[in-house]
């Protein structure tokens, strides 16, 4: 057997190894450059009451989640029930940003499915979202008492994620002064 005819097999095996490693990773999990940076400030009109405003500055001194969603995003629908559980049973403070959406649709959605958010900023033109480096929904940020981003997740928050990662992290941040 001449060795050169084994070359294609060798190359293929190398590719398979890479593909196998690739299977264990999630390509959507892009780390944000904002982790451990100061969270960008935003001031947005309140979805529920356009006269009022939702400010990130109002959350200073609390550990809270920023959840970016929209009624056009099927994954957000799936996530919604778990967010309600977090807000009601675990007492997590969640600020929503309704992104690229229509006010009527969003209001109907919250009326029908319940509202897990302390407040919802309305951002149809990606004004605030740009600064946060969001390119898809749902996306969730964890902000600490001093207003720094400590954790971020692209895609729906699941009970598994909460149990294994988020819950402990939030408890630790609550303990910080």
């Amino acid at each position: 057997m001449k060795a050169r005819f084994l070359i294609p097999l060798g190359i293929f095996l190398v590719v398979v190894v890479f593909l196998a490693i690739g299977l264990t990773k999630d390509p959507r999990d892009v780390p944000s450059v904002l982790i451990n940076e100061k969270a960008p400030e935003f001031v947005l009109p309140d979805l529920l009451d356009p006269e009022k405003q939702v400010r990130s500055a109002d959350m200073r001194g609390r550990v809270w989640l920023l959840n970016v969603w929209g009624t056009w995003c099927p994954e957000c629908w799936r996530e919604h029930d778990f967010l309600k559980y977090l807000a009601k049973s675990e007492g997590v403070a969640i600020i929503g940003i309704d992104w690229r959406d229509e006010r009527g649709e969003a209001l109907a959605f919250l009326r029908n499915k319940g509202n897990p958010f302390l407040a919802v900023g309305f951002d149809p033109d990606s004004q605030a979202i740009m600064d946060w480096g969001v390119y898809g929904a749902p996306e969730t940020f964890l902000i600490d008492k001093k207003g720094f981003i400590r954790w971020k997740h692209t895609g729906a928050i699941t009970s598994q994620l909460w149990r294994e990662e988020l819950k402990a992290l939030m408890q630790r941040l609550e303990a910080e002064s």
Partner: protein
Amino acid sequence: MIPEIGHLALILALAMALAQGLFPLIGAHRGIPSWVAMAKPAAQAHLLFMLVAYGCLTYAFLVHDFSVAYVAHNSNTQLPTLYLISGVWGAHEGSLLFWALTLALWTGAVTFFSRSVPQVMVARVVGVMGLVSVGFLLFMLLTSNPFDRLFNPPAEGRDLNPLLQDPGLAIHPPMLYMGYVGFSVAFAFAIAAMLGGRLDAAWARWSRPWTSVAWVFLTLGIVLGSWWAYYELGWGGWWFWDPVENASFMPWIVGTALMHSLAVTEKRGAFKAWTVLLAIFAFSLSLLGTFLVRSGVLTSVHAFATDPARGVFILLFLGVVVGGSLLLYSWRAAQIKSSVKFQLVSRETGLLLNNVILVVTACSVLLGTLYPLMIDALGGGKISVGPPYFNSVFIPLTVPLALLVGVGALLRWKSDDAAALAVRLLPHLLISVVAGFGLPLIFAPSFSWGAVLGVFLATWVLFTTLQWLRERAGAGRGLWQALRSTPRGGWGMVFGHLGIAVFVLGVALTSIYSTEKDLRLEPGENYSLGGYDFLFEGVDVTQGPNFTANRGRVVISRDGAHVATLHPEKRVYAVQRMPMTEAGIDAGLFRDLFVALGEPLGEEGAWAVRIYHKPFVRWIWLGGLFMSLGGLLAASDRRYFKLARKARLTADQAAAGATA
């Protein structure tokens, strides 16, 4: 009840595929004629059960049987009938069923149209395809059963992904799959030839028409996909180097190389080991494409819902099929002795260069596609390789290819006279240089070296290809007679290569001379682009079968004369709440005018509007259609049918002799 019949049919198809894979291969190896004879009936029964299974799923869509999970997730009572039928292949499970059905169809076709091929060879080919089917059917039954039921069927389905609700996209996947899976025939012929230990010119001749037909389907599939992306995604682009686009493009490039290499192996008996390797490579890339789309290792607009178990299964399958073939190759190819000699200036060299360039191109696309994955696997973080990489690699590789396309066909087999060739080519070179500089200078709005290169290459391909036709005349034959006597295979080559000329011109002129503008337009406002006046008349709300749309009205005129009225739409589909852009396009042979609606701005009815003027964009797809036509002509060449008839006659005579 019907879904259970479908499920049962799938299991029976698996049993048939097993029989089809095992008996003929073992029978051919051990020399048991009755086992060899099982190939055809088993393959046809396999096809029958696949048709039943596929029919059952289609029926579930048509009657809105939302107790079937796949139907509930991908259909809706408001969905138009066309999309109920195309919805069957709209998501992972159904498209996998379609893949398996296509494989059964190709296998069935092999059993019906291979009478000129020895029975043992057909048995091996059918057997190899049967084993591939076993893999796909197992994959479906174990991880992705399309007939899974829901215990609490919803009253209404979740609707088909609105991106897929489009006539262009309804036929894009079937074409693509016919192409992908069609390469399994060439693959099976190569494996069968290796198993039989006879890697001669015969297997190349048998697999040539099959390869051409598969290639035609793949070409059409890619053209349709590109055209769909152009008018449906609303970005005015026609190719995005998305991983999944690349997954269809790589088998196409290697398939193109395979078609040319098969010609050398058939006619001259050269490149034997190389051709076998290409046949394996083309089908492996089809399988790799399936893996990339369905395993979730790469992000893409095309990606199906992902599940790690599926990825593991396909990777194992890929390893067995490709690894096994390459192992067989390393053993058999070493035994090939090639005694064919050819000179440096010869058609063999031309085709060798064609193959080298195409394979290098395919490898660089593969590298670019897998690079983010490899960097991540090596712990280098997340990166994405976008159009800048692909364009900077792809364009320098295609220029020498275009230079060689017409010339290669002009060369004689074995050896040719370089000086005489130069004399034959010189006039065409002059014409092409003059056209390359002249046409852009006279007609184009601005000078650009890229346009000069593009026009030069297109003219060069055109004239060298026509030269081939001209040279068939002479030697006592008139031009007309020569054209009439040119076989279909020759015409196939001519149209295929003219397709490249048309495509190159389209790509060059569109990418250089397109203009676009993002605007804020109020009703009654006017904007002028590329010599056309675009008058925005405002937006109305209209109602579709399962969506509501904001429908814009844009009147286009040129020098006061009305050109077209376009209706770009912004749709919101009722169930999935997904906004979709339907561009308004006025298509023309020499330019497209393209208007896409953005977001409403302010209270006075103003909208964000994007307008494009795209010269020669149609030529990109026109080139693809020319190439497909070429492939069809080549596959329908009479000599393949003559061979079949001759083989049948000898078989009949032998039978008659035996009874007499």
